[in-house]
């Protein structure tokens, strides 16, 4: 792409960062990936949590309290979405269960899958 002679280098890069900021605000998954790549810790708004929370990664961290602290603040519909999208439960499995029961099921199944699939050698 040719450089625009009317822009300073700072203006030129600002355009790029402005676009990135806009995308990050509307795309929590991309925001989470960028934060992860940079190695930082951030707090996501409640409505974005269901998009970025990874039950397998949380279960693999070994901290049950951290797992519960992430999901306990979510609405039932958000918890169900996370479970469905991560193949941790079907609609049949979740029918009639309250949030607490759902999180218990999610933790038990995510922990089980991580232990089954992670090599014990490395």
């Amino acid at each position, binding site marked *: 792409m040719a450089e625009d002679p009317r822009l300073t280098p700072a203006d030129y890069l600002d355009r790029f960062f402005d676009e990135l900021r806009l995308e990050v605000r509307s795309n929590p998954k991309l925001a989470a990936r960028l934060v992860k790549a940079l190695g930082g810790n951030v707090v996501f708004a409640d409505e974005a949590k269901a998009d970025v929370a990874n039950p397998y990664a949380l279960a693999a961290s070994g901290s049950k309290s951290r797992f519960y602290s992430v999901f306990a603040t979510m609405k039932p519909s958000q918890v169900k979405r996370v479970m469905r999208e991560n193949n*941790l439960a*079907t609609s*049949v*499995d979740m029918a009639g269960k309250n949030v607490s029961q759902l999180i218990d099921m999610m933790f038990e199944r995510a922990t*089980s899958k991580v232990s089954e699939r992670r090599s014990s050698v490395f």
Partner: protein
Amino acid sequence: MTASGVQVNTLTSATAAASEGSQVQRMAVDWRSGETRRTPAVMSAIANLKGGVGKSTTTVMLADGLSYFYGMTVLVIDLDPQANSSQMLLTERGVQAASDQGKGAHHLLAEFVAGRPASAAPFIMPNAVSLEELRVAEEQDERRGWISILPSHPQLRLREMGLEEDWYSRTGTPTSLAKSLTDYFRTAFAPLETLYDVILIDCPPHLSPLARAGLALSNVYITPTIADSVSTWGTKQFSEWIGTHVAPDLAERNFVLITRFRDTRYARQVASDLRDVYLKDRWFGPTIPESVHVLNAMDRPAYDSYNTFRGKYGGVKQDVRRLAERFSDFLAQRTGSTWQKIRD
């Protein structure tokens, strides 16, 4: 319940599981006489010498489709040490728990090694059902389709290798071992043939003695393949080996399925060539698309997790229905029997 907390055996024996369902399963109707009669199970190998063509996925789709739409009692025999169809039906935890309870093909192989009488029933998991509709019907004592499994386990290949080393050190050959295993399994599975409608044998993508025994036991051969050049060539190798060593009339007994289909001009051309040129004398099933729905359907959340047929297969549910219909047509042509559809 096992120590790991997974309940893997809700019935006492595979024989009991199959016979309980048989009252509603005897739906085979003789084309010629019009009489309803129980026909021996059709032993169907799902096999291709090429790996990664969807053998295990086809096995599970067929088991679900035949049990759901036709109320068939299906036994899956997983002879692939990768244990993929076992994992898809039982989950990883379920496969391990089954093994811990003495269930699985590797335990049956140990019986062969020990020279004990051939009987497969004690090693079968009677319940490998994940569809909610089948579970509910069972709970209401109205069984309408069921799936049992002789699961595999990675131990299977290790035990087979040990057997091979011992066999060959005593001047045995791969062919003589394959024949002995075939004879042993034939005896072991004989009592089950009247209890099941279809026995699906998921074969590994190589010709180990165990794989050869699975092929030799089968009446029909289901060949999943991908629409690309290497898979087409692999299908030729498979046809030639089976046609030469196991089934000279392979063309009549072969059901071909194009799987993991990505709708490109190239793939359409290869699929067309398979149908019209290379395998034009075979039965073809529906083309199964490469789909995230298929991947999700094969990842059971937990051993105690159930899903409706629609929920499990989502966007590919019509493909699974067509697969079951087409395969039952193929079986009708092969056996002279038909099965009534019990669900749409």
